[in-house]
């Protein structure tokens, strides 16, 4: 950027001054002292920043007013104005919109601009008087290059970071220091717990082994206790069962003899059979006795022959007896039937007698034709006779009626109507008079009056009748005549009917003959007779059939009765009460057949007796066989079944008691592990007294072992609990939790520490690099410039170890080092600082106007020439304002370059002039 024009109002000497058409490169403002050069320097130095109310700034009469036209590198035009102490306002071209001053001045702040770009003589020393220590340090940063300002902050920043990092994690970030410590402790606790958990495995195995041996010990103790329990239990049982056992042994002895054992060992089944057979024999004998008694009561002799006689007929008598009731019934029925047949025959015979002239044979009768056809013909014939008779009778009756009527007509009196009524009234009065005589009451008077009334009425009716009769008498004569005519006709008709009737009767008699009927029999019953004959024919047929049946029944019954009679005959002599009639008697009195029951009972009894005798015989044989079954046994007990059974019963009773005791003992042994044998074996070793003593001892022993067992079990349980505790991963879980949580909290701290340390590290590295550069690169431009200015007298400029110190060391061409600036001449020092400044200005990217305010006065001509050369070179990029009162300098510039404008400043007024004139003016 360069200034094309500047207008200054009310600023110190400048009431209304303008610098118009300033040169882009070099503008020399020449003026004598107090011409306004320093004021212009102040104006230019604050152009981009505004004016500050301080000693350096001249007071305004009214208000400062600065206007400037600025041109940027791209030749854009800007207007800048400053009013009073206000900030500068910048406008592009003629636009009204204000733009930031930064647009042109970039990041060059007021201090930097005023101390770097504005070069006054008092600044070309290491510690300019107008600056305080901080400002000197800042200046140094500016001189050494952009960034040094930031660089200056580095140590403090780093120190802060390190301090704060140290607070967190100590100097070296050890795991167990400062703020890391509690977390480290927690993690270590976790690790310890983890190790404990790992050791748990060994502990677990150890405990397991211990538990195992305890379990064995427990089992051994338990076994001892069990044994003692068994012993105590055994002894207790002995104690309880002592008497029983005693008896048991005695019984055992009784039962153990050879004979007893033989009997007891004898098959119970056989004994049972013997017992049973014995019992059966007794029963049989009793029955034989009973039957014999029974039979003997009815029979004369009961020898074997008689018995055989009985049993021979067993089947027949059985059969006959069974049929007895049936035949009794049949006989009764036969007898009844016989009566009926006879009756029936009598009836038929009577009918025959009644019907026929002679009694023909049954077979003849059966031959008569009297079927339905014949019956129908006869019936018709008889009906005709009947009809004609009726007809004839009717005609005759009609003739008789007519004749009577004719007679009546002759004698008729028409009084019959009144006769009746008069009769009823007379009856009424008679009955009323009877009642009146009996009752004689008011009622009688009323009844009497009624009779009188009725008599009146009767008289009235008679009168009416007489009128009618007179009328009728006239018609009677006519009717009589008519009747006479009709009578003649009827008599003729009667004669015809009678002739026909005779024909019919003739035919009927012919049939009467055919039917063998007696002559006297009425023709009217001819049809019924014919029907009767038919009926008789059927009756005869029925009777003949019944008669034949009766004959065969008779035959069958007789067959049965014959057998009965024959049978009875056999027992006639043997059975006391037996009476048997002959067959006819039996026919008449079938009740006699009940005699069969008597025979039958005896036969059955006889039969039973025989079979019982047989059974007894075989049973006896069987019993003998049973008893004889064992020779040894037979020897021992003989053959008496009674003895056998008695011994057997006795021994069994003992045996039952034995078993009962055994069962009682066994019952007490129930749920015990001791058996009877063991109990008996033990029983032998103790008497009652020593037994209770032994029990006491065993109990004491058991108590002791039980106590031991409890202790062992407790120990095992403890081990189990411990094992269970070890079996969980609680310790591991806790350790993990401790570690994870501590790490989670520790991590941000560690990260913070690491970030702080990383930052400090980076800052340190930056510082080192920066310093390294400062030594090698930063002052390179300044070195070259200084070399040029001093004509290669000095080769190197080295900054102070502390870059913030505005101190440099110089090395000359001989290699001599000038550590202190005090060792240098004033001119050299000023050249050095000028070179440093100019080189920095060149380095700064923002190209701003440079103001040289008579700062080259201490240079000799040679050096001044070289400085001017450098300034001209600088002016190529940075507009240069040279404020001077030294003609030599003006001359040097003008001689060396034409890119220059010369201005004369006089009493606050600028006049653009030729350099000669300018020199003249200020010389």
């Amino acid at each position, binding site marked *: 950027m360069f200034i094309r024009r500047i207008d200054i109002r009310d600023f110190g000497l400048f009431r209304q001054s303008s610098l118009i058409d300033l040169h882009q490169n070099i503008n020399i403002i020449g003026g004598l002292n107090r011409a306004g050069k320093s004021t212009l320097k102040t104006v230019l130095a604050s152009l981009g920043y505004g004016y500050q109310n301080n000693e350096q700034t001249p007071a305004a009469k009214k208000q400062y007013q600065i206007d400037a036209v600025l041109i940027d590198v791209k030749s854009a035009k800007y207007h800048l104005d400053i009013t009073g102490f206000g900030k500068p306002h910048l406008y592009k071209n003629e636009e009204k919109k204000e733009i930031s001053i930064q647009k042109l001045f970039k*990041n060059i702040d007021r201090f930097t601009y005023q101390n770097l770009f504005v070069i006054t003589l008092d600044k070309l020393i290491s510690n300019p008087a107008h600056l305080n220590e901080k400002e000197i340090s800042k200046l140094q940063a500016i001189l050494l*290059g*952009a*960034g040094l300002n*930031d*660089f200056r*902050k*580095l140590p403090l*920043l780093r120190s802060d*970071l390190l301090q704060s990092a140290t607070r967190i*994690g*100590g100097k*070296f*970030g*050890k*795991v*167990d220091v400062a703020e*890391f410590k509690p977390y*480290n402790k927690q*993690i270590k606790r*976790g*690790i310890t717990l*983890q190790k404990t*958990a*790992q050791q*748990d*495995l*060994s502990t677990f*195995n150890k405990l*397991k082994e211990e538990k195992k041996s305890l379990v064995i010990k427990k089992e051994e103790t338990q076994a001892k206790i069990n044994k003692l329990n068994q012993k105590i239990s055994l002894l207790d049982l002995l104690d309880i069962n002592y008497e029983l056992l005693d008896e048991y042994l005695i019984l055992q002895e009784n039962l153990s003899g050879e004979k007893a054992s033989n009997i007891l060992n004898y098959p119970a089944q056989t004994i049972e059979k013997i017992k049973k057979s014995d019992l059966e024999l007794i029963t049989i004998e009793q029955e034989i006795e009973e039957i014999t008694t029974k039979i003997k009561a009815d029979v004369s002799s009961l020898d074997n022959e008689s018995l055989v006689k009985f049993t021979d007929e067993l089947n027949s008598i059985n059969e006959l007896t069974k049929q007895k009731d049936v035949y009794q019934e049949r006989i009764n029925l036969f007898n009844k039937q016989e009566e009926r047949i006879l009756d029936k025959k009598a009836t038929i015979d009577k009918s025959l007698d009644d019907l026929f002239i002679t009694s023909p044979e049954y077979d003849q009768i059966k031959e008569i034709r009297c079927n339905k056809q014949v019956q129908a013909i006869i019936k018709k014939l008889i009906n005709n006779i009947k009809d004609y008779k009726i007809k004839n009778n009717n005609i005759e009756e009609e003739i008789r009626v007519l004749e009577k009527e004719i007679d009546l007509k002759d004698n008729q009196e028409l009084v019959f109507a009144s006769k009746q009524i008069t009769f009823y009234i007379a009856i009424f009065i008679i009955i009323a008079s009877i009642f009146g005589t009996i009752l004689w009451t008011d009622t009688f008077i009323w009844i009497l009056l009624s009779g009188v009334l009725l008599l009146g009425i009767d008289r009235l009716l008679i009168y009416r009748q007489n009128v009618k009769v007179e009328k009728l008498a006239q018609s009677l004569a006519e009717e009589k005549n008519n009747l006479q005519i009709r009578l003649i006709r009827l008599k003729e008709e009667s004669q015809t009917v009678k002739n026909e009737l005779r024909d019919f009767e003739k035919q009927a008699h012919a049939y009467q003959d055919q039917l063998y009927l007696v002559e006297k029999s009425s023709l009217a019953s001819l049809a019924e007779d014919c029907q009767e004959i038919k009926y008789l024919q059927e009756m005869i047929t029925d009777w003949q059939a019944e008669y034949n049946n009766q004959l065969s029944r008779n035959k069958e019954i007789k067959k049965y009765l014959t057998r009965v009679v024959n049978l009875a005959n056999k027992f006639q002599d043997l059975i006391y009460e037996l009476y048997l009639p002959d067959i006819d008697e039996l026919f008449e009195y079938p009740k006699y057949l009940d005699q069969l029951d008597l025979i039958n009972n005896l036969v059955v009894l006889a039969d039973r007796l025989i079979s019982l005798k047989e059974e007894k015989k075989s049973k006896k044989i069987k019993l003998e066989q049973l008893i004889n079954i064992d020779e040894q046994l037979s020897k021992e007990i003989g053959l008496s079944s009674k003895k056998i059974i008695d011994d057997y019963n006795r021994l069994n009773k003992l045996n039952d008691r034995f078993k009962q005791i055994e069962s009682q003992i066994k019952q007490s042994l129930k749920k015990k592990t001791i058996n009877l044998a063991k109990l008996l074996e033990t029983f032998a070793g103790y008497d009652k007294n020593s037994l209770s003593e032994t029990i006491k001892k065993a109990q004491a022993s058991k108590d002791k072992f039980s106590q031991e067992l409890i202790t062992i079990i407790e120990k095992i349980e403890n081990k189990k609990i411990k094992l269970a505790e070890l079996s*969980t*991963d609680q*310790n*591991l*879980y806790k350790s*993990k939790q401790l570690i*994870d*949580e501590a*790490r*989670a909290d*520790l991590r941000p701290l*560690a*990260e*913070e*520490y*690491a*970030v702080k*340390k*990383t*930052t*400090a*590290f*980076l*800052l340190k*590295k*930056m510082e080192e*690099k*920066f310093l390294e*550069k400062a030594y090698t690169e930063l002052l390179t431009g300044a070195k070259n410039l200084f070399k040029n200015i001093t004509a290669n007298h000095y080769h190197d400029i080295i900054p102070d170890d502390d870059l913030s110190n505005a101190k440099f060391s110089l090395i000359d061409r001989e290699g001599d080092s000038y550590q202190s600036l005090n060792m240098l001449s004033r001119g050299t020092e000023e050249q050095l600082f000028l070179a440093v400044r100019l080189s920095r200005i060149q380095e700064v*990217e923002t190209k701003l106007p440079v103001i040289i305010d008579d700062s080259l006065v201490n240079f000799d001509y040679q050096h001044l020439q070289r400085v001017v050369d450098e300034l001209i070179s600088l002016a190529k990029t940075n507009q240069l304002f040279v404020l001077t009162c030294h003609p030599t300098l003006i001359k040097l510039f003008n001689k060396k370059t034409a890119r220059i404008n010369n201005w004369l400043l006089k009493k606050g007024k600028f006049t653009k002039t030729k350099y000669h004139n300018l020199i003249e003016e200020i010389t």
Partner: protein
Amino acid sequence: MQKVSFIHAADIHLGSMVHFTGSPPNYLEEKINEAVFNSWNNLVELAILKQVDFILLAGDIFDREQRSIKAADIFYQGINKLAKENIKIFMIAGNHDHLQDYQSILSMPDNFYLFSAEKFESKLLMFKDFTVKIIGRSYASREETRNNLKDLQTEFANFSIVMLHTDLAGQGSPYLPLNKKEILTLSNVDYWALGHRHLPQLIDKKPTIAYPGVLQARDFGELGKGGCWLVELIDKEINKIEFKNLASLEFKKIIIKLTDESDLETFSDLIDILQKRIERLYLQADHNSIYLLEMILKGQHPISKLLSEQGSEGLQFIKDELNNQLSQAQLSVWIERIVDQCINEFPISKLEELKDNNPLYQELESLLVKLLADKELKNELLQEMGEIWTTRTNLEESNPLQFEVDDDQLQYMIEQSKRYILNNLFSGGK
């Protein structure tokens, strides 16, 4: 056609637990604590369901540091269950459960075989149509340097499997120093059942070289799903090899870029954004699984200033709020941590100017670039970070007293430092 199937698993680290902090709701905490055990139980169930013929366990089945009786018991129960199904188990011990430390608490049934550490042993399995040979050797101690494969020479079967616990890192590794090339010199092996690496890898198909990784991830160093390989052989050849997820819990890192969040002004807004992101994740997630999340805030946003001011307390507040909401919604998600990795809030224009004009800043920039490239400088910085930080990234030997710093972590810290420097050195203040 003979079909044989087996499971290849390793690095179960029974006894170790999932690392988490805070107090998740009860419905989650128990599951999280039991996750490693559950993964083993899941493996047992899978084996029974698929009726596999045998199971290969290629080392580190137990965790040396966190070996517990409970772990032994749960393992034993699983083995017993498998025994009932007639499924055989072949196990080698790894560096975490090497035989020096191995203490058998429970006597194993016959279906279980633990290879000795003395030499390579082999077990021959006879199937109807072919034979399978399983070769393996346990670790005798924490380190295994015997890498001579000649020891492994044996008569091979129709299908041969070698179980090794190695990192395949070659020479110098304390964990069976072999590399892929070396193991491939044994041409008769059909399946290399490896263990040690914690992420599942199918390194090669023929012959198969496979790492199943952990069954259950336990921290953010084990991202992704945990499980085993289910291998099916048909007539001596591998017909199918399938990775089966058996983990009930998954660690997930979610990066949230805040740069374009226009409605983000307060922590509440930030909580809303994170919540929506979690909801989105949950919608796509396997609902049987629990998710432990690390939410990383990235990008450039004015909120980062607030985050930076509030520091870890602010992040903790956000985490607690979110976890409360998740608990109330009964979601199986737990936020383990929220990390602020937003880039600095320094105005870009100013930054540009600094880049152009400020040699000190330029110095910073060049330093930052150099830091990640220059090993020496990086080491110098790591030294500065103190003992609490270590570069040892060996998961096997991690020291809970220290934190491991990887490049990401370093980058994050450097970014934070840069942020600090910009704000405190170049912000123009005093």
